[in-house]
């Protein structure tokens, strides 16, 4: 599938800053599920930016401005061709060892209501893939509010039906549960060409299987990612895949425009 993307962000770096510095992670890389046909990031300072791979294998850019405008515009756009591999990415060269993604983080604390179901379950021949699918389903059940969820500190999360938690919460819950079961799991940010949804910079997860390598799971949608998902960045959790970090700090960048168009 051919997916055309145009993603425009606004960074409010404030008035009067002498300098501003950004760490930009908005570059998809070609891999087993996608080939990047064209891609560019347009923003002030991009012409002198340093380009490098970060600790998780993402293409990062270090961008700076002298006496920046109070508001910086960032436009990432391009065309990515995707292939549906039922979520299976396999082993990617140059990536850190999967074991790294067993490291617990503050955002991926396991949620008792999810992990309790699995800890006691004997594995009796159940494959890791079946386990991960069950885990994904359970994350949906708990976070969609079908069941009252219990977070690690015991506080119950009261959600009204209208407020569905953001996709990052689903990914974190899935990752936390997988890591609690000693399965390496990582956070993925990217674009989803979802016909039923407003286009958004979205998140899902990938879990490791010794046989198949990395397998992607989208617990927000309850499916394994298809050719409608474009991977951009991976990391331990949402913090390591933030699309733009900035000093002066910007809070979170405001999305001005997002267009994701899929064509067969």
């Amino acid at each position: 599938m051919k997916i055309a993307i145009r993603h425009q962000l606004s960074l409010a770096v404030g008035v009067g800053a002498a300098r501003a510095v950004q760490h930009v992670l908005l570059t998809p890389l070609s891999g087993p599920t996608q080939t990047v046909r064209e891609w560019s990031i347009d923003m002030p300072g991009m012409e002198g930016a340093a380009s490098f791979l970060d600790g998780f294998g993402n293409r990062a850019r270090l961008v700076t401005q002298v006496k920046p405008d109070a508001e910086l515009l960032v436009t990432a756009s391009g065309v990515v061709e995707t292939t549906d591999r039922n979520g299976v990415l396999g082993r990617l060269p140059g990536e850190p060892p999967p074991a790294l993604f067993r490291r617990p983080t503050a955002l991926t604390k396991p949620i008792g209501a999810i992990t309790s179901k699995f800890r006691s379950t004997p594995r009796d021949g159940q494959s890791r893939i079946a386990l991960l699918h069950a885990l994904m389903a359970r994350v949906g059940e708990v976070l969609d509010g079908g069941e009252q969820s219990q977070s690690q500190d015991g506080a119950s999360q009261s959600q009204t039906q209208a407020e569905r938690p953001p996709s990052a919460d689903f990914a974190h819950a899935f990752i936390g549960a997988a890591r609690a079961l000693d399965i390496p799991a990582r956070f993925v940010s990217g674009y989803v060409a979802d016909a039923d949804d407003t286009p958004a910079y979205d998140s899902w997860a990938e879990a490791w299987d010794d046989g198949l390598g990395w397998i992607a799971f989208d617990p927000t949608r309850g499916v394994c990612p298809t050719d409608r998902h474009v991977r951009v960045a991976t990391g331990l959790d949402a913090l390591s895949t933030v699309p733009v970090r900035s000093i002066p700090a910007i809070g979170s960048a405001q999305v001005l425009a997002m267009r994701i168009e899929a064509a067969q």
Partner: protein
Amino acid sequence: MSVTPPFDEMHNADGSIRDPYLILDEWLKEQPPQALSLMRSDAESLFRRLGITFAVYGSNEGTEKLIPFDIIPRIISAKEWRRLSKGIEQRVRALNAFLHDIYHRQEILKAGRVPERLILNNSAFCPEMMGLDPARGVYSHIIGVDIVRVGPDDFYVLEDNLRTPSGVSYMLENREAMLQLAPELFQRLKVAPVETYPETLRRTMESVAPANAPGSPNLVVLTPGIHNSAYFEHSFLADQMGAELCEGQDLFVENGKVYMRTTTGPERVDVIYRRIDDDFLDPLTFRPDSMLGVPGLFDAYRAGNVTLVNAPGTGIADDKAVYTYVPQIIEFYLGEKALLKNVPTYNCTNDEERAYVLEHLEELVVKEVHGSGGYGMLVGPASTRQMREEFRKKILARPDNYIVQPTLALSTCPTFVDRGIAPRHVDLRPYVLVGDDVRITPGGLTRVALKKGSLVVNSSQGGGTKDTWVLED
């Protein structure tokens, strides 16, 4: 406490003088009464003039103190030093290889020689460093190895300091002081020089400049500022090396490179000896609230445009829990047995070992896994019942937060105290520089516990220092 008396570095068991100390002994006997007292007061005014002070955390009598200096040097023979430095070099090479491995393929974890969890779940492990190739593959360029001696040929490594070890300025100033106080002794004994350290540091830093740096790389020392306890050392080293001393606000990142503000405009910076902890180095990558660091510095480092000395994330190799695995680490990377011994260490998360520890607290030393400077430490033989009770509770509450070791009978050196010359316990921190080669400054910082019988040599806990003389053949 052990029953055998501690090893006396000056005297044999029969009271005769050990070879390395023969000339010093003669000299001491020649000194008229009062000469040593005079020398000591000369030394004090010398150090005051030099302005060497250190800050004591949690002390309310002024923050700056003069570190006590003992005028009697510690002497190590050429043969003893050769052995010791071989062991240190082995350790330092293995630990740098370990850092490269755990930030790349993690073969040692796959081989199960070091538990994966101990590394990957450790707060000192820095995931941002994964896959990064520092110049010459060196992670820790400046290392201080803490060593204690318990017998003529018996050395133990207490800990490896691979983050930002301090104290080297004392080593240099102590030598400077001794050269002034007792120049005639240097005529009689051939003492290996330590004065070359700043020049060697400069060469080491130049040798790890990024590939795209110009012919003569620009070096700076990055300090957290005047309120840091080691600020004196930062400015001293910068001065001695002929490098600029900078604070975070003096540097900035532009177009992927690091620059220093100068009166004549921005100047590109190639190698940074940073004395700011990892967490505070760069608010864009690490703690966003840090005002001490330079925004974008880590990314510029990752992009290969600047070298950080030492690299972030080296703390994983001197973590006290990882320490117990250093002999295995040496075998794994070098295929050799460790030349220097590790102090046997009890693991409090193991039920049996913890039970033993809690039964024998009055004989043992308890250290916090992430502690330093002698803070948060229990020395069993010198502890009160109340202190032991407090540590018992702490260990039970967080067994993984403590390591426990037997109390070692640290060797003693003759020390000039109020009642004349008496033996006092010492340790040794030699300084190692790693760049195009491994260079160990002959000697190092000898710390001495000035209180009779005390085994705690930390300056924050009533310790002093001595000049350390390595004799040349």
